[in-house]
């Protein structure tokens, strides 16, 4: 139907375009200029173990320095880059002092290439590996804001300073509200390092790479910095779902982020007018080890708790997110629709409750708090009514039927005419 309306609109001029543009999401909002440039911080481990010369005969630190130089050279103009080091200055044996050893050598901002390179060139492998503290400081360096921040952590050894455990720090930072992604690069093929970096990456939705050559390291950092430029504007709004429908937050179309604990139900409300369609999807991230099988359920219910529609998905094994979605059309709800049509003011919105629940189960030893990341996408668009039956036909059977009907009609008409002419002549 709408297709035809569109073609009519083309034929009649711009008569109907305003009517069509009405319920669609406003395009102007997308063109809103982004105030913030992408912000990335490289966090480099300069602990004593970086002296090891096991990457193609070169020391780990010299490979990292070369990679940093190339990354700084190839940096996109708008990207704001900072560099933080850990274990770079303290030569002593006192663990307490050594575990505070992290400095920002290039502040996050427009990059002065010569200065950044000079700062990197002077680094000498020295002390301890306070990864947790460095991550926390890096998150502070990047500041808070509406866009996604990215940390690229390059290390060759596991944290020697826990507590704080770097993985717990990462999870805590990710839950703080600012959208933060930590990508990790391991320079040593060591099991403990790998576990730790995988845990950090998993907790923040980042990636883990084992870099075993200068080229691999450079390419990967470049790719991550480039990715930061592509994706930094897509940060969802943080919202806190309620545990009942009445007190649930009222959401406009858009993307939201929340946290949900194991077996928790979270409620959100969305106003939907008659003639509109609600579209909602939810993703839950597996940011910690969970039992093998799991599921996520998104239900839309009316205010009185009656279920309207549900979306569900289940999975098992390794995954980053598990997602489900649903559509629901307000005009499809007979009672509400007729009520609304009866009143002259019309279009009193129905408030639909969205309930997000999960069937994840923690493994022994898995932390339950903070909850697992939930990403909720909500859209309200014009409803698409069921098509009417086709008014015209198609196919060979139709042609045959029409031809036979025509033939029979012709024969009948001919016979009638003959009979009528014969009768008329006789008279």
């Amino acid at each position: 139907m709408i297709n035809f309306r569109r073609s009519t609109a083309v034929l009649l001029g711009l008569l109907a375009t305003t009517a069509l543009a009405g319920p669609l999401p406003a395009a102007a909002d997308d063109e809103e200029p982004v105030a913030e440039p992408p912000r990335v911080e490289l966090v480099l481990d300069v602990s004593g173990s970086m002296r090891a010369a096991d990457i193609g005969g070169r020391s780990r630190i010299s490979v990292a320095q070369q990679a940093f130089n190339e990354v700084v050279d190839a940096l996109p103009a708008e990207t704001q880059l900072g560099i933080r080091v850990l274990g770079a200055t303290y030569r002593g044996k006192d663990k307490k002092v050594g575990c505070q050893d992290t400095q920002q050598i290039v502040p996050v901002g427009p990059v002065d290439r010569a200065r950044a390179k000079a700062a990197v060139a002077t680094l000498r492998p020295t002390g301890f590996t306070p990864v947790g503290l460095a991550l926390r400081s890096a998150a502070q360096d990047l500041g808070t804001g509406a866009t996604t921040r990215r940390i690229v952590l390059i290390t060759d050894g596991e944290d020697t300073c826990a507590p704080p455990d770097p993985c717990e720090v990462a999870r805590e930072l990710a839950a703080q509200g600012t959208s933060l992604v930590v990508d990790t690069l391991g320079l040593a093929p060591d099991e403990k390092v790998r576990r730790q970096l995988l845990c950090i990456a998993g907790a923040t939705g980042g990636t883990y790479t084992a870099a075993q050559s200068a080229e691999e390291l450079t390419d990967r950092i470049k790719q991550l910095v480039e990715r930061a430029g592509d994706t930094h504007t897509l940060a969802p709004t943080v919202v806190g779902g309620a545990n009942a429908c009445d007190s649930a937050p009222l959401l406009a179309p858009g993307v939201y982020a929340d946290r949900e604990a194991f077996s928790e139900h979270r409620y959100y409300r969305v106003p939907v007018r008659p003639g509109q369609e609600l579209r909602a999807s939810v993703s839950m991230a597996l940011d910690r080890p969970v039992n093998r099988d799991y599921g996520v359920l998104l239900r839309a219910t009316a205010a009185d708790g009656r279920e309207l529609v549900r979306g569900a998905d289940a999975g098992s094994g390794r995954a980053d997110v598990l997602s489900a979605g649903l559509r629901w059309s307000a005009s499809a709800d007979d009672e509400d629709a007729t009520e609304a049509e009866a009143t002259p003011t019309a279009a009193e919105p129905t408030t639909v409750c969205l309930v997000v629940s999960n069937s994840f189960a923690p493994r022994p030893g898995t932390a339950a708090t903070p909850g697992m990341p939930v990403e909720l996408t909500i859209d309200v668009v014009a409803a698409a009514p069921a098509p009417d039956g086709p008014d015209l036909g198609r196919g060979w059977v139709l042609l045959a039927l029409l031809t036979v009907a025509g033939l029979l009609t012709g024969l009948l008409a001919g016979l009638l005419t003959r009979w009528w002419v014969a009768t008329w002549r006789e008279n």
Partner: protein
Amino acid sequence: MRTALFRSLAALLAAGGSALLPAAAVAAPTPSPGATPVTRAGTSFLTATPITAGQPVRVDASVGDHLYWSFAATAGQVHEISATVSFPKARSGASTWTVDVFDGLRRRQACTAGAQTPTVDAQASSVMLGCTLREVRPWAEPWSADPLPGTYVVRLSVVDLPEPDLGAPIDVDLLVGTVADHGASGDDGELAAPLQPNTKAGTVLNAVPPVDPEADDEGDSPADWLPDLGSRWVWTGIGGVLAAVAGVVGFALTRRPRRR
């Protein structure tokens, strides 16, 4: 006689109605000539890298990455996704790879054919994945899970592997191809808006927003009752002509043979 008539009619339809009748083409996915290769991939639904059908993707990644791309589909299309993951380095054990496809509402889509979840042993130097999707429907009830026009998201990942293999470099080649396009008739309904995910950050409302009365003013078109332009007009029109001709023939048959 009748077959000849049908044949000529069919020829007429093919010649005259080709603009109205959607052309069906079936072919394996091949890169479009001149398409710019994509060298990046997203890492989540929100950051999925948009690609178009026929545009080859070649990206360096690490084992364990979840790589996301998105493409647009319209009603009547059938898409086939083929991907190859090559391993430049030795691995310690067998691994299972998967290509998952989701619609604009992040609902999992079924594959009708293709190696969606292949397992390769440690010696293999590459693994090939494939997925042929269902034909996109022009309209479906809100409660159904039919594939609808809009954005589709492809996710490539490894689902099972020995942990020490994580993080190793891989090369990923991916191609989304439109293997068939049957088009769609307006008679089958149409979605008011395709299933395109809203990626804007949301706003929490304090109260139910007042209704903008003008937004509802759709304005009924005077020609609303007419069916959409499409092949049905051609078929029905030709049917009418045939009926008229058959009527005249039938009429003529009843005439007495002329006496000479």
